[in-house]
């Protein structure tokens, strides 16, 4: 199979786009597409300071690579979770993030949860109701909290994450299956900083397939963590991705169409902002100053701070 743009052999055939490309043209096409989506959804500009959350995985490292190739001012943020599970998962992820930063002379901020809060994510989750079975909910909540805080404290204009089309389609699928209107109202390539204490967030890869990102990382020879997080095995997100992949195999473009028609429906006013009841009641956490949906301490502070310390913060 030949490249659509030249006579060289194609290395990837994107059936959903009816487009086959050689290595050289593929490595041009991905940044071009990313730039198109950054502009289409008014994500950020060349004068903005961008913070990319990097996990050591293919999506976030590739995103960092693409944004720096495109000439954006982009620093990285790595959050150490303290996940070991006999394979040194977090240690290896951090090594890969630091290696990438060093190779490309990019600035990486590292926040270690065990160092800063005295506990690993699995340990923290183990003593909470929401995380005693699996640490994923506590992990997600902690990452969101720290990402927002790091971007605010660092004076960044926007926080970007490596969520790809498969991630977005899986979330959309889950939120539709469970009819979660608040999440459906909020899902968009950009999350505006429309509440005090929140930073602007953007997902420049939201229209690129996970497969396309894996191909980009391979062709750019980006070393990334290949193993799945040990706690994600058997997760619902992977289950939904598998279902969507079966549809994609039968009907190329199914995932893209699912996501794009949703975005179009939102633009046409199908989802009323009032469905997001959480947005109606935003409070400020007395401990960290970040926004929270209920009065009092936010979920992160309730999790990481011991009850007697919470009391001290409350009194003062």
């Amino acid at each position, binding site marked *: 199979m030949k490249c659509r743009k030249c006579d060289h052999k194609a290395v990837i055939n994107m059936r959903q786009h009816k487009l086959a490309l050689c290595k050289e043209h593929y490595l041009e096409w991905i940044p071009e597409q990313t730039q198109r989506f950054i502009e289409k959804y008014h994500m950020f500009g060349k004068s903005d300071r961008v913070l990319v959350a990097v996990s*050591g995985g293919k999506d976030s490292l590739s995103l960092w690579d693409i944004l720096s190739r495109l000439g954006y001012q982009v620093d990285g943020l790595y959050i150490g979770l303290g996940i070991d599970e006999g394979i040194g998962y977090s240690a290896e992820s951090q090594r890969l993030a630091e290696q990438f930063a060093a190779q490309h002379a990019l600035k990486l901020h590292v926040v270690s949860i065990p160092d800063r809060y005295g506990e690993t994510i699995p340990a923290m989750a183990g003593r909470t109701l929401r995380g005693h079975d699996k640490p994923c909910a506590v992990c997600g909540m902690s990452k969101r909290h720290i990402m927002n805080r790091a971007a605010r404290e660092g004076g960044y204009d926007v926080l970007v994450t490596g969520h790809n089309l498969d991630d977005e389609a899986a979330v*959309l699928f889950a939120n539709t299956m469970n009819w979660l209107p608040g999440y459906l109202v909020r899902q968009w390539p950009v999350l505006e900083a429309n509440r005090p204490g929140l930073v602007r967030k953007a997902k420049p890869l939201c229209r690129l397939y996970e497969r396309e990102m894996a191909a980009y990382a391979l062709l750019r020879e980006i070393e990334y963590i290949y193993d799945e997080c040990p706690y*994600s095995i058997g997760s619902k997100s992977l289950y939904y991705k598998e279902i969507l992949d079966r549809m994609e195999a039968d009907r190329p473009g199914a995932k893209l169409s699912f996501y794009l028609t949703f975005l179009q429906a939102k633009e046409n006013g199908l989802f009323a902002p009032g469905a997001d009841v959480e947005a109606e009641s935003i409070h400020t956490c007395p401990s960290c100053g970040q926004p929270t949906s209920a009065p009092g301490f936010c979920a992160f502070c309730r999790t990481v701070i011991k009850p007697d310390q919470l009391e001290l913060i409350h009194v003062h």
Partner: protein
Amino acid sequence: MPVKLILRGKEYEVKPGMTLRHSLLKIEVNPVSVLATRQGELITEEEILQEGDVIKLVAVVSGGGILEGGE
């Protein structure tokens, strides 16, 4: 000599002369869930696999963690 396909350390064998796509379906791997390399080079699903080929499959989903949303 069969074609060898390797995915996450597990080896599969198929007959030569089929496309990569057909070979993946034979071993019940969804073609959209993997990328394939031969001698370090990425190949498309339309590639016809030859006798003795060793195809390294790269699972597209990696990393992990929960997604932002209701799950």
